[in-house]
């Protein structure tokens, strides 16, 4: 049996970290896009769309991410679609993320004074114009800190995808442990790497919150 140096362990973990980062970024991007569409549905005038988006959010917020992942992964293979783990992982995380982001953003949109909607209505703007030019620019500011904060949840959420065999940081940890029999060292590193990814995000979320608060008062 070959000996693994600490350096080997770390190298293997760092290589897998690339996938954690990539999956997080893709999830954030696509989850953000779907979340934005859901936001428009939920704050719009069409009752059926509002209802749909509301149910969607309740569904994905009310069930564990792990179950969603299983359902996507095994559900798709059940209907004959054999998707690779990375795709199932990305899809499940995207759906999950979009529900949470649209909920966060809805709160921000609803924080905008009713008078802003009325004034822009009275000037002849339609719903999309109001959102684009009046509401979202104001909601954007208050949305940044909680959105960045949620990105921490995404990074940690990617760990769940190890269970369907996607080799990201956590899965790599398991594999390396099986080869080295040094679980404490390996998972210690894994935790440190997650922390190194998440800490800057949560710090910047707090920083942005403070900064935007101050800017809001002085602006």
């Amino acid at each position, binding site marked *: 049996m070959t000996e693994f140096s600490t350096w080997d362990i770390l190298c293997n973990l760092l290589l897998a970290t690339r996938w954690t980062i990539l999956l997080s970024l893709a999830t954030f991007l696509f989850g953000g896009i779907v979340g934005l569409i859901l936001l428009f549905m939920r704050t719009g005038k069409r009752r059926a769309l509002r209802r749909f988006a509301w149910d969607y959010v309740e569904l994905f917020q009310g069930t564990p991410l792990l179950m969603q992942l299983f359902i996507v992964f095994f559900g798709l293979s059940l209907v004959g679609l054999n998707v690779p783990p990375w795709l199932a992982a990305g899809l499940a995380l995207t759906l999950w993320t979009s529900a949470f982001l649209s909920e966060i953003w809805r709160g921000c949109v609803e924080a905008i004074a009713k*008078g802003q909607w*009325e*004034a822009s*209505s*009275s*000037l*002849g*703007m339609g719903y999309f114009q109001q959102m684009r030019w*009046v509401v979202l620019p*104001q909601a954007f500011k208050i949305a940044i800190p909680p959105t960045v904060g949620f990105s921490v949840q995404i990074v940690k959420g990617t760990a769940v995808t190890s269970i369907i065999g996607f080799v990201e940081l956590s899965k790599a940890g398991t594999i390396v442990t099986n080869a080295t029999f040094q679980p404490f060292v390996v998972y210690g590193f894994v935790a440190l790497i997650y922390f190194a990814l998440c800490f800057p995000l949560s710090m910047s979320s707090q920083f942005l919150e403070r900064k935007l608060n101050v800017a809001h008062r002085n602006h």
Partner: protein
Amino acid sequence: MSLIEITEVKKRFGDNEVLKGINIDVAAAEVIAFIGKSGSGKSTLLRCINGLETIDEGSITVAGAQLLPDEIHLKALRLKVGMIFQQFNLFPHLTAGRNVMLSQMVVKKVTEKDAEAMARNMLDRVGLGHKFDAYQEELSGGQQQRVAIARALAMQPMALLCDEITSALDPELVNEVLAVVKELAKEGMTLLMVTHEMRFAREVCSRVVFMHQGRVHEIGPPEEVFANPKTPELNQFLGVTEH
């Protein structure tokens, strides 16, 4: 022909009938003051005319076109009728100038250059040409309200609805806003205003509408309404507000 025809308009919020059959015809260039107790339905009526509330019965036509609650009709209506609110409702993320430019560009698809020229023009008109680049925090309440007026004027409406536009202002700032409105009235703008400024109503308005419990209780030229109230309700209202 009347510019605005309000016929048998009824509006309910749940079981609460707030407007109980309103009939008013407004000729072009008329200035009408709406007075009445709190809860008598003044704001609701103005909001119905602008389509911010949908009416349950009756009809409202503006320049011959009936107000219907779909997007296209609403937009057409709002191009004809502007509204000014008690709370100004400027867009806080935009400068005064951009506030006035935005809806021209977005709704009317005016070019940026033309919109800016119009905005400067309208801000001049309300005496704020020098505040083009100011954000709302840098403006007094009176100035903010004048920007709101300029913003509505830039859409070149046929009529303006003003709902207690001086009520949120410190007393010393009321007159600068009323002066602008007076100027508009002189230039022939059709104005429907809810106001507590009785002196202003007396001086500027062609007619005064006294609303009571969701109905037009008295209507007439200010001399008549103020000097000779026909109903005890108006008498009492005037007694309460003028002492």
